[in-house]
């Protein structure tokens, strides 16, 4: 199993600014992902964070808005750029195990 931590746990930001969310896994994992959960909604996959190469984005998400880094097998960051109130969501980091998916505690972002 893997334990995932995220920082910050929550933040309130102003429109037009950017926020970087950090995700740390306590063991090496092959695949890491970032999900968004809008208020009262389900989880939607933003992208797969690839170690040493550019992230793979899902339809509707672009690198300019959500740049992702993954410098090694245990760490990834997601930046939410040029934020608007519509970006207010919970952002969750996830990692794949053999037959399980692990999740971080999430970052609750509020954009004013």
């Amino acid at each position: 199993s893997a334990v995932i931590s995220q920082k910050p746990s929550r933040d309130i930001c102003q429109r037009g600014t950017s926020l970087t969310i950090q995700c740390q896994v306590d063991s090496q994992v092959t695949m890491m992902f970032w999900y968004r959960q809008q208020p009262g909604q389900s989880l939607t996959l933003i992208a797969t964070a690839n170690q040493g190469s550019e992230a793979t984005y899902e339809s509707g998400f672009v690198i300019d808005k959500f740049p992702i880094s993954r410098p090694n097998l245990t760490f990834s960051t997601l930046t939410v750029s040029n934020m608007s109130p519509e970006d207010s969501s919970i952002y969750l980091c996830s990692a794949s195990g053999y037959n399980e998916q692990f999740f971080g505690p999430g970052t609750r972002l509020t954009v004013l």
Partner: protein
Amino acid sequence: AQTVTQSQPEMSVQEAETVTLSCTYDTSESDYYLFWYKQPPSRQMILVIRQEAYKQQNATENRFSVNFQKAAKSFSLKISDSQLGDAAMYFCALRAGGTSYGKLTFGQGTILTVHP
């Protein structure tokens, strides 16, 4: 593409009673996993139970069991002897193999209320 559908936005149950949450899915992959996750107000995603598609036997974890109907693409969760701590949002999720390996597709969620 994968889809997961939870048709019950909200469910309620009396403490100590049994409740079943429904989930249907669609995938063209033959190798996949199905999961039920619980998300309490703390927002931490907690794995409740998982089912490998190649296994015919339904998974069971203490008070939680599934009814996996592969041909019907149905994956319901039964919670027995419901407890107040079971109150949460429940998500059904599919993880397919192939090029989608590791990616989870989630249903819309079911809010479960447990009445004392």
